[in-house]
């Protein structure tokens, strides 16, 4: 125990809020999936074969307090698995993750939302799941409603909301329920244009508040604009890690054809 606290102190001195050390993750993909007791009894004498799928291999990096870190890579490169390990949903098969603060994971918006409940009840439910206690929710409730632009519909059942309203409400709870460390998986902008603008403003404010953000995204321009550091995953390994401009450029060079790159250069400045 004392060893652990010592280690935590050491991390604090270096201002490191997340440390990922040699993390690997494998998934076993059985050739014949057994998902019932019946299946288990039937196949008890047959040999179980499976393929090992490597989702992450020997990943190490540090994140300092107040840093904005982007994780980029092609589909299936292990981005979301990494984020899930940081969130504590998956256990790494080897290596370890040390986290020195409280995490708000936004892998999906509106976790626990129930369409049969009112907007009010859903705010309390969702915010509690995100780790707020009752007193904190009471304090923030008016702000959440105001930001979501739901107004007088707040006591209506959520099943009567439009899908835009639902995601606005979910997003609004999410941004008010945050802790020191935010993990985000492609949830940056929802709703109409005006609402998206508001969301990006909030995101910029996190910088001033000294929050640490880990962002998984395919929107390279957003990553390049907001992140200080980018981790580029390719085939379950870190291909490059460094300043956002450098890494994003390499990622684009790797993944786009010459024509697409040219097109992007022309459009530069037009995007958000």
């Amino acid at each position: 125990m004392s060893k652990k606290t010592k280690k935590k102190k050491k991390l604090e001195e270096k201002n490191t809020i997340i440390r990922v050390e040699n993390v690997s993750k494998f998934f076993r993909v059985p050739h014949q999936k057994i998902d019932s007791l019946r299946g288990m009894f039937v196949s008890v004498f047959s040999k179980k074969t499976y393929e090992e799928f490597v989702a992450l291999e020997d990943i190490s990096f540090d994140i300092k307090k107040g840093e904005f870190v982007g994780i980029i890579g092609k589909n299936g490169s292990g981005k979301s698995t990494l984020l899930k390990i940081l969130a504590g949903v998956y256990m790494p098969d080897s290596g370890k993750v040390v986290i020195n603060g409280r995490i708000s994971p936004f892998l999906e918006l509106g976790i626990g939302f129930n369409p049969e409940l009112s907007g009010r009840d859903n705010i309390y439910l969702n915010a509690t799941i995100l780790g707020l206690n009752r007193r904190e929710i009471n304090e923030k409730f008016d702000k959440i409603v105001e930001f979501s632009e739901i107004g007088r519909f707040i006591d209506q059942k959520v099943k009567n909301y439009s899908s835009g309203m639902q995601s606005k409400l979910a997003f609004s709870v999410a941004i008010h329920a945050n802790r020191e460390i935010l993990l985000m998986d492609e949830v940056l902008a929802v709703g109409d244009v005006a609402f998206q603008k508001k969301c990006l403003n909030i995101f910029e404010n996190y910088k001033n508040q000294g929050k640490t953000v880990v962002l998984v995204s395919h929107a390279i321009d957003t990553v390049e604009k907001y992140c200080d550091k980018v981790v580029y995953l390719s085939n379950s390994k870190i291909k490059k890690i460094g300043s956002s401009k450098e890494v994003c450029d390499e990622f684009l060079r790797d993944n786009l054809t010459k024509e697409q790159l040219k097109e992007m250069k022309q459009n530069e400045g037009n995007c958000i």
Partner: protein
Amino acid sequence: MKNKKHESYKDLIWMLAITDFKLRYQNSVLGYIWALLQPLMMFAILNFVFSSIFAPNGEIEYYALKLITSLMLFTFFADGTTAGLRSLVAKSQLVTKIYVPRWTIILASSLNALMIFLTNLVIIIGFFAWYKVLPTISAITMSFVFIVVLYLLILGFSFFTATLFVKFRDLEKIWNVVIPAMMYSAPIIYPLELLPEEYHKYILLNPLAFIAHFNKEALINNHFATVSQYITFFTIVIVFFGLSIWSYNKQSRKIAEYI
């Protein structure tokens, strides 16, 4: 810090339990009446069949009262274990999209079952008033202990099966068949005395049968089990609960990958 974290789990467990409870009754008075009607209808059918059609050895004293008391306890067990078995799969979002300790979800499900049972307690009290039977203080205390133990059995069962159900999806079908088997193997619709005496001690090894039998014996006849019977009973319950926690710890680590 650690304390604060614990408190937030308390809020979470309570919120999950109360939400399911609210959804069941849909915030309406009629919803509550419907919830009461379900076990009452079951009682009415069984009471009719076994006191009119198959009445064994003529009238059994207070048959209806004994039946409703045991039936309510059994409904608590059946509903609680079924909901507990499903709990993790039903709330899979809480397992795969965020980290909350998995036991909070299972605990919330069992608390929800407890709340439903406590609201249904009105029926039992009503029946005792109707038959003008007043249990002694020690009988009521004993009944309270039985309810607590029954709750622990449901919780233990939920810890045991919720994690297994993630991997073995036919477990629910199996359980749906086992439940009626358990109901007929325990002295719920019949008195224990109906069976040959040499089998009593084996039947009472089943904690559910023990609770069903001695709960109605205590409340109606003011008759209690012997010390050695209690020792056996509590040993079985504690061993079962311990095994379920052990199984949960073993199974719960990799659940997010299978769900």
